[in-house]
């Protein structure tokens, strides 16, 4: 298991989740959990994914998602889960 958190922040439009999920599926990345919320009018989505099954390395996935985000007008970030775990769990 190699857990990574993907966050998508931006104006809500049709097809954001579809496009991100298509990329993840094509790359062999398994989605473990999805949740979303609206903060100050902005769409915030968080996915917990497992990168163990993908042939792509972290940097490539992060770059690809960044590019995809630019295409659909949102900001997509890719971070390893440990930073959130260490900050919010004792």
């Amino acid at each position: 298991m190699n857990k990574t958190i993907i966050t998508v922040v931006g104006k809500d439009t049709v097809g954001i989740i579809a496009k991100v999920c298509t990329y993840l599926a094509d790359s062999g990345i398994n989605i473990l959990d999805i949740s979303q919320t609206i903060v100050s009018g902005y769409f915030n989505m968080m996915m917990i994914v497992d990168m163990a099954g993908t042939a792509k390395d972290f940097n490539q996935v992060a770059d690809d998602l960044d590019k995809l985000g630019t295409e659909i007008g949102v900001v997509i970030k890719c971070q390893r889960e440990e930073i959130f775990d260490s900050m919010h769990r004792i």
Partner: protein
Amino acid sequence: MINVNEVIETNDMIEKENLDVRTITMGISLLDCISNDLQKLNENIYNKIYESAKDLVKTGDQIAREFGVPIVNKRISVTPIALVGGAACKTKEDFASIAKTLDSVAKKVGVNFIGGYSALVSKGMTEADRLLIESIPLALSTTDVVCSSINVGSTKTGINMDAVRLMGSIVKETAEATKDKDSLGCAKLVIFCNAPDDNPFMAGAFHGVTEADKIINVGVSGPGVVKTALEKVRGESFEVLCETIKKTAFKVTRVGQLVAKEASERLGVPFGIIDLSLAPTPAIGDSVADILHEIGVEHAGAPGTTAALALLNDQVKKGGVMASSYVGGLSGAFIPVSEDQGMINAVEAGCLTLEKLEAMTCVCSVGLDMIAIPGDTKDTTIAGIIADEMAIGMINQKTTAVRLIPVIGKGVGETVEFGGLLGYAPIMPVNQFSCDAFVNRGGRIPAPVHSFKN
């Protein structure tokens, strides 16, 4: 499992509140480089540092990328050069050649500062110590990224007043030697009392002789995060205030701990310590003075400031200590003037004086830091200011430091621009009364008694 609100909180800290890991500093022992042949010594130093740190910057950048948290600086600290160069260096120029070696290898591996052009003279000076100290103006004016620090006192040994007097002149000479860059050399020169062996922050970092061959020390930061957290508890009691600071410091420090462990593992170098410091930058919102304002003083320097700072410093430690397996270095709130926009504003508003800053250093790390003073300030006056600050450290069993910049050719009311993380500073007035007869006495101030604490 992590929930979306926790993810948003962390990312807001990073994106909106300037949360970062301020520095990963690799400490490298140079004791095994010692040779009595200067050329050989320089080669040994270059090779050891290059081999040890060649992947430091790349590794730091990759960790930053994977965790999505900026790691602002990658730095190196080395064994105090007075110890390493003693056998080979017979002149000031010999020592300065080591500074050049440090400068070139630091640039080669891509770090932004290298610290350890240092001497530890809290009780006495060897000939090598004296030569190194006398070479500082030359060394700092002919290099870009080398930092120098001199420890002139400690609680256990007292204060070496000969060294203090000498440093008064060296600070001034360094200012003269770099006057075409607004005396920038002095921003890379710190005078310490009780200097820690494992400090990751510049300009005072060196790799103490009590340390392992190589070590990774990490300095965390996040004044903006603390300030934002405090905005939500305006008007609440001290209990609520302190709890909020502790919880925030815990979260900030955990990020540092994670980065330190990861860097240590990837570089194959043991993890040393986390330095729990609130280190400001000139960026808006990344200010310790702004936290003091949020706690309730109009500007840093107003009555109540020392108490507010004491409280802040203590809560940061209380929160941070549990978040990290090893804590060390300076650990406390930094109050540099030029690197903190809120401090600069306080000086410009006429609220903050050198004397109040001195009082504030009694309750926080580290000391009189990045303070621009008139270029015509006398050597002996600078030595007197150093002596005062060292006395505070000696008596209170804490680290104190002085980093003053006498800006040659400029006076009170003018400002000086250092650029980057060093910021800019209004030149502050200095007490004009003389201390010549005091600092010219020579000798040492004896170590203080460790009882009868009043």
